[in-house]
């Protein structure tokens, strides 16, 4: 079955759009982390700086999965690996 360039490019764009849905997860995760950090600061305002740094570290680690989705989208849009076999 033969597919032409335009069809593959269109499907790549759709795939890129689907890939960045991965951003939902880190959003929820970072929100939870920030909420708990705010609660922790409320309970113990003296530990604010260490709570903030722990929160940022955890959020950055949680962000990784979303970035993988973003990376897949970027690869599909700019590197176009699905076109490699085609002409």
């Amino acid at each position, binding site marked *: 079955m033969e597919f032409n360039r335009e069809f593959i490019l269109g499907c790549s764009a759709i795939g890129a759009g689907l890939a960045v849905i991965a951003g939902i997860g880190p959003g929820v995760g970072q929100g939870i982390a920030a909420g708990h950090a705010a609660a922790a600061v409320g309970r113990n305002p003296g530990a604010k700086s260490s709570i903030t740094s722990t929160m*940022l*570290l955890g959020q950055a680690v949680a962000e*990784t999965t979303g*970035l*993988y989705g*973003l*990376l897949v989208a*970027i690869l599909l*849009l*700019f590197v176009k690996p699905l076109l490699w076999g085609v002409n």
Partner: protein
Amino acid sequence: MHSVLLTAGSDIDVMVHGLFKYSFFGHEVWITTTHVSLLFVMLILIGFSIVAGIAIRKGAEVPGNFQNVVELIVEKLDGMVDGTMGKNATKYRNYIGTLFIFIIFSNISGLLGLRPPTADYGVTFPLGVITFTLVRINQFKYHKPKEIWADMCSPLPAWLPIWFPINVISELAVPISLSLRLFANVLSGTIMMTLVYGLLKWFAAVWPAALHVYFDLFSGAIQTYVFCMLTMTYVSNAIGSEE
């Protein structure tokens, strides 16, 4: 055919470009835009370190402005390493400080109109590999091979290495996830700024400065901090608590 997906006929361009081709033992090697921006970052850092070295060498008892800034930077970096690594900190102050300053200058070099060197996976992956090497070296330095084997089979006893392949994969994922996190963050910031400037043309006049503050300064600083933090955490985990 570049007429697809926002690259159409405008100067929106986020890719690394080859500038100069030469042959290295029969391989075709390119000097790319990343090398050029790395060169600028390195020149800035080397110049700064020379000036700072001179200022510290003839340092006054009551420090002047510049000496104060340099001492503040060194104190903050050393404090960060001390706070995370505890008694192992002395050996790693230099490396982590260098790493921090290099990555943060690379990240904010987008402000100078350069393409940030860290938006190239060829720059971040070696940094991840250095961390990985440090972890492995320290593990073998502070633990017996038997302990490492037991650790690699960890949820099950050492004579039943069912979890071994999974643990190997999770160890190999460390440098990849470290470097991809930094790379993807900086790259997404770069792409965002390029889109703003490329699509809005004259309309993108003064207000993108706010976006620069977020994507270059804030995001870059956070990712630098995270990279150094994770490197220190992994290394001190590998050293372990005993001794």
